[in-house]
């Protein structure tokens, strides 16, 4: 596997514009002769589909939900970053670039991050032009808030529903193109195979989730915008349908998978309440603008929070990280929460929780202001827990939230399979080992609106591949594989449900490949996961038929892929014998418990190559060079 990142050289601020100049263009009249498949219509895929159709390409877009408006992006709460410097607080492209490289613990590619920061401002302009109702000040100008890992206020938001409003903007642009005839939207269709012909990605095989029909689709290029794999842990803040299938199937067809072990644990989520729990709910990071995080100083203190005087509270983030305080980045805030709970100072059932307290902010600003800022989040908390955060602090605990790892892509967002492009959370490129809050929405829309539309044109203009149809034997074979797999699931007739296997896998991974990882635990997982997988294929029970809507069957496919992918993630975590960002190997920490990187040996992206059923995948390296930001120990003290 050859890893050529195709990063331009020269002054970093000129790289993207020079690169745009160097790329080949497709003549406007020829664009309609090219067909592009886009799998996933969240922020990344929806924006890409709309923009590519506007340019004149023919787009076939797919999602598994009943409407593109329901992609998981809809759930993003807090906001989207952009280097607008509207607050005049010293923000700039350079500062956003710097914060993102540092926030990612120096494991991202500089050229990509600069470009992301550079196009960030255009995203806000575009969204406002679409009618996205961002929060505004009384003077009519856009409002901003702060997010973790930054000392400027650069986050744009729409109450606590930023993802919803951005996605609706992209969805409307997409539906406009559906009406115009440039996009054919295939909802309730799940991609189950990628088709590669003569080394190029040429199409996909899908299952119609309503009729069960297995169909093949040919194109000149394929884009995966299928989101992240956080649900490998079963419990996460992701929507229930989020999965790794599209990217994992591509991995099995030769696409390199980069840094699968980089997973983000979000510090502020509602704690688990019982074994029946089906997902975890995020309480937006924006709450840390006004909420103060604390636990009792004494172990096992069971007094009600209001009975604990200030002198017996440990505001541990403010204590340990005075310059960032409650806005310390996610990886750091999560680990700090785990630490105090491990010390026996956690609160709530099971001692797995810390307080997020608005008492001081309410005293200072009044309940009305707090309700204006966070009302919907407070309501959500009350709905779920039955408790009132206006009168008692919220209880929160870290939960799996986002995945920085994903399919490896070059500067053109193309994977190691020519023609296969990957955008949004599904790729690995911009966040290194830890994503800063409000940067995923930025990256998804940067990829879809402003980067892919240029770079895919270059591929189409230069690839010069003959047209193929779905009669090609590779399509027939891929469709046959899908059919065989489906039949196999239905024939097992075992005793355990799909969800049961998924829960078991998730619990194993959370325990040994979650917030803290050790060589011993990871090695155990490499024994345990294959055993579980074997049992799955013998003992899972998938009722129903393949000729109708069958959600158990859909889930079986996703969990089967998680059972393989989980092992890859563990392998990567074991291989990376350092701590960085969201990847915390307990053996590698500083005396005060912070992540200890090993730049001499691990300043690279690890890219895994599939070697066939049962064979150990091979790890390749893309070295990371830091020319503009000096490698240093990340400090938020």
């Amino acid at each position: 596997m050859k890893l050529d990142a195709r990063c331009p050289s020269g002054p970093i601020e000129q790289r993207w514009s020079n690169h745009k100049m160097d790329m080949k263009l497709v003549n406007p009249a020829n664009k309609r002769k090219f067909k592009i498949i886009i799998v996933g219509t969240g922020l990344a895929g929806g924006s890409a589909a709309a923009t590519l159709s506007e340019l004149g390409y023919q787009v076939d877009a797919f999602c598994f939900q009943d409407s593109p408006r329901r992609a998981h992006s809809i759930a993003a709460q807090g906001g989207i970053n952009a280097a607008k410097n509207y607050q005049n607080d010293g923000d700039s492209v350079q500062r956003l670039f710097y914060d993102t490289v540092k926030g990612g613990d120096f494991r991202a590619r500089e050229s990509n991050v600069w470009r992301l920061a550079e196009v960030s401002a255009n995203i806000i302009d575009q969204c406002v032009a679409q009618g996205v109702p961002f929060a505004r000040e009384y003077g009519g100008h856009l409002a901003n808030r702060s997010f973790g890992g930054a000392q400027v206020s650069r986050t744009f938001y729409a109450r606590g529903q930023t993802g919803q409003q951005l996605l609706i903007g992209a969805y409307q642009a997409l539906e406009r193109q559906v009406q115009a005839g440039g996009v054919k939207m295939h909802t309730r269709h799940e991609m189950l195979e990628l088709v590669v012909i003569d080394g190029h990605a040429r199409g996909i095989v899908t299952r119609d989730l309503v009729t069960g029909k297995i169909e093949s689709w040919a194109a000149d290029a394929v884009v995966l915008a299928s989101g992240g794999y956080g649900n490998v842990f079963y419990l996460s803040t992701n929507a229930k349908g989020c999965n790794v299938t599209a990217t994992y199937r591509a991995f099995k067809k030769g696409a390199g998978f980069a840094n699968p072990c980089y997973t983000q644990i979000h510090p502020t989520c509602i704690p688990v309440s019982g074994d029946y729990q089906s997902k975890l709910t995020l309480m937006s990071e924006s709450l840390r603008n006004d909420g103060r995080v604390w636990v009792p100083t004494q172990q096992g203190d069971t007094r009600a929070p209001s009975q604990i005087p200030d002198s017996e509270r440990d505001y541990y983030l403010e204590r340990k990280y005075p310059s960032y305080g409650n806005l310390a980045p996610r990886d750091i805030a999560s680990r700090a929460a785990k630490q105090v709970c491990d010390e026996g100072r956690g609160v709530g059932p099971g001692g797995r929780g810390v307080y997020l307290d608005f008492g001081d902010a309410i005293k200072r600003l009044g309940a009305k202001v707090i309700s204006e800022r966070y009302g919907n989040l407070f309501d959500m908390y009350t709905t779920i827990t039955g408790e009132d955060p206006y009168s008692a602090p919220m209880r929160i605990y870290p939960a799996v939230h986002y995945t920085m790892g994903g399919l490896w892509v070059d500067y053109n967002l193309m994977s190691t399979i020519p023609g296969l492009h990957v955008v949004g959370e599904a790729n690995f490129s911009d966040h290194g080992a830890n994503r800063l809050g409000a940067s995923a929405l930025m990256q998804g829309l940067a990829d879809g609106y402003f980067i892919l539309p240029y770079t895919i044109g270059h591929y189409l203009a230069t690839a010069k591949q003959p047209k193929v149809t779905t009669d090609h034997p590779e399509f027939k074979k891929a469709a046959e594989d899908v059919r065989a797999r489906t039949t196999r699931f239905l024939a097992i007739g075992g005793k355990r449900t799909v969800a049961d296997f998924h829960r078991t896998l998730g619990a194993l991974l959370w325990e040994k490949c979650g917030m803290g990882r050790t060589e011993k635990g990871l090695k155990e997982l490499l024994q345990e996961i294959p055993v579980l997988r074997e049992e799955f294929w013998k003992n899972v029970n998938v009722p129903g038929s393949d000729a109708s809507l069958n959600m158990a069957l859909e889930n079986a496919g996703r969990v089967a892929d998680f059972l393989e992918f989980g092992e890859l993630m563990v392998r990567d975590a074991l291989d990376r014998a350092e701590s960085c960002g969201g990847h915390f190997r307990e053996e590698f920490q500083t005396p005060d418990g912070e992540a200890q990187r090993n730049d001499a040996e691990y300043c690279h992206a690890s890219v895994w190559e599939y070697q066939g059923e049962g064979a150990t995948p091979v790890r390749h390296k893309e070295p990371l060079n830091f020319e503009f930001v000096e490698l240093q120990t990340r400090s938020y003290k």
Partner: protein
Amino acid sequence: MTTGKTMTLKLHVWRQAGPNAPGKMTDYVANNVNEHMSFLEMLDVVNEELTKTGEEPIAFDHDCREGICGACSMVINGIPHGGHKGVTACQLHMRHFQDGQDIYIEPWRAKAFPVIRDLVTNRSAFDRIIASGGYVSVNTGGAPDANALPIPKKDADQAFDAAACIGCGACVAACKNASAMLFVAAKVSHLSHTPQGKVEAGDRARTMIAQMDAEGFGTCSNYSQCEAVCPKEISVKVIADLNREYIKSSLLK
């Protein structure tokens, strides 16, 4: 470490094997329902039990389980989403039910939302209504600076209130005419409160209404049942915005 009270519930659920198959209410007993469960978690538990006995689980749409994607859609004891103010079915928690209670669970019922299976319906008519005009006609690129055009906070807030619609279809399910008026009006109101969307407001109102009619949704008779069940509490005032844009543009034609 499960805490909280448990209860037993008597469920009566609409089962329908496919779009053209006959459907009927089927009874199930849900045991060990914890008060902290969400309604969908309760159904998950029932489904796992059904699967173990070889019966097909109850199909229902869901995804985010946070009340924002609009996927979950079921009528609970006669009311879309179950009748708790501002709450979708996925956010409804079992602490609002009593031990031994009967619960009737049905799909959205509307000609324009045909049943696919059990509680799952086809709501793609909503996508087609948006495609008919629910957008600002702007291509990617070339947008002016976002702060070039200040928007009064009041307008931005009103736009947001309408834009909060999650497209779940509860409004249609609650309406005795199965009208999609609240859904259409929310979009028209959202966009007409922004200067960018104002330009096409009239055309938008007309094309979206025409599409709504073509999809087989009923007419609005101002019963306001839609507002009562809307999980995002969208006010019927948006319908006045729609009517205004519609009339203005019809007069100008």
